[in-house]
């Protein structure tokens, strides 16, 4: 199945690999941002819906 799939991509791997590369880069950037976020801020943000005085 995978062999068949890879064969079908021929001549166009450049699109596939570039696209995946762009996504990987993007994903790593978002992940890095998450790692440096502070816990108290996360807590503050996640409680925003509960703080609107409407029950």
């Amino acid at each position: 199945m995978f062999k068949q799939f890879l064969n079908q991509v021929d001549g166009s791997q450049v699109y596939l690999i570039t696209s995946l590369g762009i996504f990987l880069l993007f994903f790593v950037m978002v992940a890095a941002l998450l790692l440096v976020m502070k816990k108290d801020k996360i807590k503050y943000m996640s409680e925003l819906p509960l703080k609107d005085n409407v029950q």
Partner: protein
Amino acid sequence: MTEKFYYDNKIVRNFAVATIVWGIIGMTVGLLAAMQLFKPELNMGSQYTTFGRIRPLHTNAVIFAFVGNAIFMGVYYSLQRLLKARMFSDMLSKIHFWGWQLIIVSAVITLPLGFTSSHEYAELEWPIDIAITVIWVVFGINMFGTIIKRREQHMYVAIWFYIATFVTVAVLHIVNSFQLPISLFKSYYLYAGVQDALVQWWYGHNAVAFFLTTPYLGMMYYFLPKMANRPVYSYKLSILHFWSLIFIYIWAGPHHLLYTSLPSWAQSLGVVFSIMLIAPSWGGMINGLLTLRGAWDKVREDATLKFMVVGLTAYGMATFEGPMLALKQINAIAHYTDWIVAHVHVGALGWNGFLTFGILYWLIPRIYRTPLYSKKLAAFHFWIGTLGIIFYAVPLYFAGFTQGLMWKQFTEDGMLKYPNFLETLLQIIPMYVLRAVGGAMYLIGVIVMTYNIIKTTRAGKLLANEPAEAQPLSKTYEAVGSDRKIHRILERKPMVFMVLSLIVILIGGMIEMMPTFTIKSNIPTISSVKPYSPLELQGRDLYIREGCVSCHSQMIRPFRSETERYGEYSKAGEFVYDHPFLWGSKRIGPDLAREGDKYSNAWHFNHLLDPQTMSPGSIMPPYEWLINQKLDTTTTIAKINAMRTLGVPYELGFEHKANSHLNNQAKEIAADLRKSNVHVQSDKEIIAIIAYLQRLGTDIKAK
């Protein structure tokens, strides 16, 4: 110093009412369409209620009227509270509300009349497209205006989903609406064939992503924590899955075109990103379900939460199935069958429907300041709705597997086991009956909900302006500590956020579409493929008007099972003059890509007059009005000119000869029909549609 202000609940109420009203209408039309699949007479002999015309009415009503109004209801309620501000402008809210309803009404009128662009989920003609753009911008100004005058510094994750929805739907709608108008309600798409298909399914897929998914995820992130009275399970996960989701979704469109004439690299790109999509989709589902950790006892008692749980589960099932269906091997069987219809309805009925109901049950008692009229009726709605989904989906899955496999079955001698398409259809008719039963159950649930909500509103009184107070934001913001971090800055700057979302979605869209538009070798031309004759062109527009594309594909995939049944597989170069493409997405009837010269003109005449006489058991409705109605030839010149503008090589001056050319061809067909004892005047619509059908696929057929 805190400021006093009021939340606008009236606009929320209005959108809630619209959600319910259009929901009932859209689902009723859906039920009628479903019943026509086993009782075609249910169009009651009228051309305005045939399956081909009410199917787009159903999809548009459910997507843009039911779900659309529910989105605005959820956004207008949650946005005000998350930002601690009233909506930017009451006037804009009103224009948005009435404008949107007007657009829906115009859809309800124009679609049965046959005014359609034929692009799925974008059928509305160009003047309505413009109206949609205007109203969408009004919504955007109102939303960003509210964000700007907010009293809460940071934008909660729900708002990012709303922003991504706004910006992406705007891009999708505009790119998929590039049309050249011929008259007030007729236009041709700028793109043709493969390019048109790519744009349409880039749009279609992302309409699912950014109209049916992202706004609902935003609503889930607001309403679920409110209902469960606890914060979302993981805020970090919400950030990660937000960015991944909007990034990946936009690339996955080509999975709707697997094994078609679309260049294979574009198909592969679509497959890879579709499979990756499972991760961010499940990120959202898991985040939602785990928000209920420690609150499961509430789920047992609270119908509202029950709706949310089943809704999220349906989302999980549909988003697992989506990537699976994008695998070529599975798609080979599933595509064009009812499997796809089952798949989208798990999403629509389960995810969109149930989340909407959950939110309505939670929100209406709050803005009317009274408890829900009957918890028992809500529980009944939940159960009949859930059973309805099961009774809807399971028969269609079965129908899909059965028919998909029957199409591909060969005898030991290497012949098609079911060479007659109709045989495979008759096999699944009982499943169509069951599906309608499931749909009816679901609709009964909605009617019960409506009763319950009306009773609730009667018992209470709308708190049109809900008082609230909050500290205003200081004019200058001093970032301290971790607030200097990039994402924290983003959360304070809505415009930067919007631009970034726009860039993220544009990357995928551009890499996917640019090569097909710019590199010539992606669509090899075929010298024997010629433009349509004027009569065929008019016939093609009748084919579009009648919505034939709802049931008949024009795309033969390169499988032996298809080439044996329909003929040579379709090539990209065959569609270069097709504005718009008419590949279709579902085969309720057989593919028509090579229909030309297969049967006599008389066969087509009799078949259109009464399909059952030529194919006993057929579920196609009779099209007798085509025989009585005169073909409108006043548009021929404009059509030829428009096509030439779009690059179809009609000679200069041909437009003036077009109608005499049209008349000659029509007379030839009428004369041929006379030989078979069929007497019909040559100026009737049926002649044009026969001319078109007889042309299909003949350009590259060996004579």
